[in-house]
């Protein structure tokens, strides 16, 4: 492997990656995607094992992880921003409570 990874995206179709360590605002970090690595800049602090958007996501866009739909954004999310219960929701549960 070229260099150590700071985040993993598990599938080609994923729109989020999971960070393997806390990443600070404005920090560049390396994401391991299937078959390639990309470098992304964090636009805010991302806590360990939380998700970060790999590209700009519109409001009410589907969020993919493990190659599947895991929920929808409830607001626009910029590439490099935290994707968590404050800006996404699932189908079965409303996680704002």
């Amino acid at each position: 492997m070229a260099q150590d990874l700071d985040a993993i995206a598990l599938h080609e179709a994923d729109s989020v990656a999971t960070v393997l360590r806390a990443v600070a605002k404005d920090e560049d970090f390396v994401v391991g995607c299937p078959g390639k690595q990309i470098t992304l800049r964090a636009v805010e602090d991302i806590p360990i094992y939380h998700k970060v958007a790999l590209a700009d996501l519109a409001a009410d866009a589907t969020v993919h992880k493990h190659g599947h739909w895991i929920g929808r954004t409830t607001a626009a999310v910029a590439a490099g921003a935290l994707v968590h219960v404050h800006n996404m929701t699932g189908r079965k549960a409303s996680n704002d409570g």
Partner: protein
Amino acid sequence: MTEQPTFDGYARPNGAAGVRNDVLVLSPTGLTAPTARRIANNVAGAKLVSMPYASGVVGDDGALRRRTLKGLATHPNVGGVLLISANEPEMEAMAAEISGAGQRVEAISLDSCGQDALRLTHEGMRLAGHLTKDLSRQKREPQPLSELFLALECGRSDPSSGIAANPLVGAVVDRVVDAGGSAVFGETMEWYGTEEALSARAADDGVAEDIRNAIARREQAAEAAGMDLIGNNPGPTNIAAGLTTLEEKSLGSVAKGGSRTIQGVLGIAEAPARPGLYAMDGPWYAPESLTGMVAAGAQLALFTTGPGNSFTSHLAPTIKLSANVETVQRLGELVDFDASALTAGHAALDDVASDLLDKIVAVASGEATWGEIWNEGEEVISRLGASL
């Protein structure tokens, strides 16, 4: 196409391959369980499976009892069975069935020993000793990966499970299934929220419907028991650890099933008719879940854990693996495979998957797991209802 690895296993008369060659002391009746335990404790290498129930287990429960006991008795890792029973007619029918399936079996009842549990112990030890002697002469031979049937389990999860350990197991399962082998994942409640993802991988519409129905039945059972599956799932601990939705949590669990076509939904302890990947509609608790999959014929289990979980199958060597850096350091003599390079960002999934496949081949060929060394194994037969 790279050459597929082989493992050294025991060729069985019915064509299956064992990764162990155990003498199984099997007590289908609770009354003879202590005697069976005395026998197994005093014959080197003998493995005990006993059920604390018998008479009064009826209906679906009775059918599950018989199916599980038969599945364990005819398991490929078992080279010979000693049946110890307090129900002579049932024992004779079971012995005929086990023998008819190509398995060597000896049987002795409490009745035939005049209800003398000590005499039964004595007679049983001699029979188990002769089985052990005979099995010790059998040799391992190279077996193709297509003979392998993996049981997939997770217990005590943390963030390392969903992003590393379970996807790692999934990557290996894809390789084994592509080589013509088999795998099964259970724990139906953990499919909740992945109805679309799993049913999209079903071999046909009937299998897709079976998957959706299995999830719906567990959901109804949980609701009938007063559980709130939606409001607090993922819970506050999950959310604080980075999870957002039920779909995300469940996909992290079913990731251990890989990405290949799901050939069918099995009942607990139901053997698949053909090779491939299967889902088993079974309970989430690891002791019950593992036995259901092992009784279906799985010879080896892959068991992922986050903070640690020592339980293993008794008949199927269980490779315990964790991707949590702290866990693999703390539990060096309980974790068989260290996948923490994935969560540390030091290694790629495909490379670690190759190492895990090497470990599977080594264990299938005789390398002892920590669970085998510490005697962690048990088999726990599920109950579905009340006894008469």
